[in-house]
């Protein structure tokens, strides 16, 4: 039996099995608490999305609810932004609108008996269906239990109690097993907080800065044997990483295609018999 869920970063890092290198604190310290946005969970109930955000999957009520959920799973605190500020709702919105939400790479043939916890997810629902049903059921259950108020309008402590009840299976969500839905929310929040920012979450690489992950770096050949030295470089995302740090010369009359990039890649690889390789 798993212990009941208690939100917080320490718990989160245990869940994902991350070991925090000494450099994480260096990075976080360098970032400075002054630059952090104020913890936002107290305004979660009447949160408004960015003016330019366009939801692909969530309706307006769902967006508000998801914002409130992820803000409790990874709250903003003195170490930096939380999941909501890092755009995890946007991440989930895009994932659920796409192949993942539709059940890509997901074996969907029956029968669907209840399995053991070790046997993992065994519902016939796609992730998109699960979120749609689960979010509506969550708000319905909250309204019934807390005087007509949906999840997002509950106090933070009450929200935590609801989430803990979901995880423990004691907070019922109609037909949907609460623990299964909770696990899906937690997995999605962790993915959105730590996946590359190209997917819409981990905004400003907030998740990576928190744990000191350098991101999509191409090489650590020069750093690997520098022991006990803080790694102070900012992380890079797929969209911002230079394609190795090599210049690329393309004749002006030749279109720049990915094949040109392939040329570049090939030609950069050292020919091994020039470098004293053994045969």
């Amino acid at each position, binding site marked *: 039996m798993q212990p009941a869920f208690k939100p917080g970063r320490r718990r989160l890092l245990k869940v994902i099995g991350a070991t925090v290198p000494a450099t994480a604190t260096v990075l976080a310290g360098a970032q400075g608490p002054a630059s952090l946005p104020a913890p936002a969970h107290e305004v979660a109930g009447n949160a408004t999305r960015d003016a330019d955000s366009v939801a692909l999957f969530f309706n307006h009520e769902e967006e508000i609810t998801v914002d409130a959920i992820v803000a409790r799973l990874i709250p903003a605190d003195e170490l930096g932004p939380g999941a909501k500020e890092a755009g995890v709702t946007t991440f989930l919105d895009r994932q659920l609108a796409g192949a993942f939400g539709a059940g890509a790479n997901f074996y969907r043939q029956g029968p669907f008996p209840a399995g053991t916890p070790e046997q993992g997810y065994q519902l016939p629902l796609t992730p998109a269906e699960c979120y749609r049903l689960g979010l509506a059921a969550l708000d319905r259950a909250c309204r019934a239990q807390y005087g007509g108020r949906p999840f997002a309008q509950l106090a933070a402590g009450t929200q935590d109690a609801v989430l803990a009840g979901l995880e423990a299976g004691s907070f019922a969500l109609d037909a949907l097993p609460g623990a299964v839905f909770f696990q899906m929310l937690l997995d999605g929040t962790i993915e959105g907080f730590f996946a590359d920012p190209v997917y819409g979450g981990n905004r400003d690489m907030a998740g990576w800065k928190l744990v000191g992950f350098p991101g999509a770096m191409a090489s650590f050949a020069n750093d690997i*044997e520098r022991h006990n030295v803080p790694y102070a470089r900012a992380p890079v995302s797929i969209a911002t990483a230079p394609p190795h740090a090599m210049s690329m010369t393309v004749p002006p*009359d030749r279109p720049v295609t990915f094949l040109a990039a392939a040329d570049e890649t090939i030609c950069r690889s050292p020919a091994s018999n020039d470098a004293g390789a053994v045969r």
Partner: protein
Amino acid sequence: MSKTLPAVDAVIVGGGWTGSIVGKELAAHGARAVVLERGQPRWPSPDFQAPAVHDELKYTRRHALHQDTAVETFTFRNRTDQTALPMRRWQFAYPTTHLGGAGNHWSGACYRFDPTDLKLRSHYTQRYGAGIFDADLAAQDWPLNYDELEPFYDRFDYLIGASGFAGNLKGQRQPGGNPFEPWRSRPYPNPPMKVPFASALFGTAAASLGYHPYIRPSALSTRPYVNSEGLPMSACVYCGFCSNFGCEHFAKASPQVCILVGATTPACATCHAPGAPAPQPLPRLEGMPAEYAVKELLDFRRGTRPSPVMGAIAKGLTDGDIASIARYYASQPRAPIGPIGPLPGAGPAATLHALGDNADVSAHPHPAYAPFRRTGLRAACAARARRAVCVPAPPASVPPRAALRARCSRNGRAGCRPAAAGPARAARP
């Protein structure tokens, strides 16, 4: 609609390590073999290039290189009194899809079986008594032992450019290596991986407690290496994206890097054999910059360089095929090409084509070569000037070949560049 293909000697199902090795061995012994692969062709370039490949969501969480569970998965249970259920998404054990198989996404941990692994039943029976095995447990010994397998392990190590420090060379313990390692006939072909901080701390602590920490043998090449098939591997740069990811650096051993190019380029070598005595009837490619072969093959494929033979061949090549072929030829030693006389019955254009773009035609008496007698390499550039790739004519004071060698150096950038201005522009029609 069914289509009948020419009969072959062997059909291999699955293009991973095993299929690739078996296919190559069959081909090397004169058999025609076809490998069927259910996934997509995947090559280090362009499919695994950074930074796009450094994507944990795609490769670790969404299993981009693993078997698609929507199509096929397997069931499991932890105890016999449970009902086995399908793993609807991978939770552990990652069977694979795509060319290269698990060779794409493995971490490269590269242990040999221990001698006791190969005689499981007799070893444990001898040590713990026959009661150690339940009656319905079907464990048994292999029909061969470690000593018989060692030459093949050794061959595989030199195929994949294994990195490590031998702990047991021909029965002699080597301080610093794995004290429990089975004997090896040769050292690892490459030195062990560099040790990061956390591993160094752990190793120091373990040693202080009387244990024998060692650096794990790895299928990641630690230096530029030419493997037993004559194929090049590059040195690992410690990017950290091994397990679940394809390697963009040609450092992690995979069928594509270590064997498939060698198994497929014989098709090219029918006409462009590396190391064949000069002059060959067709252009020599070995030692030419990879960029050269890429450009030519792309031109053939696009049709911008018309050729009935090469056009048809190139249309069947993927980007990954082209990249692999080019990299292979670039890695081969460049054959010395001395001054070439006229080929019997061949005119200037045919001679130039036959000798290849790196031909030295200084001794060729045909008047068409008069402009190129001192600049063998330049002949190639000039011959292709109409295709807008050329180098400016060097100043008269610079020895032409030296100037061109500098420009066409394999270690430099493009062998031939468009001139910014000047004589070469004027030379174009």
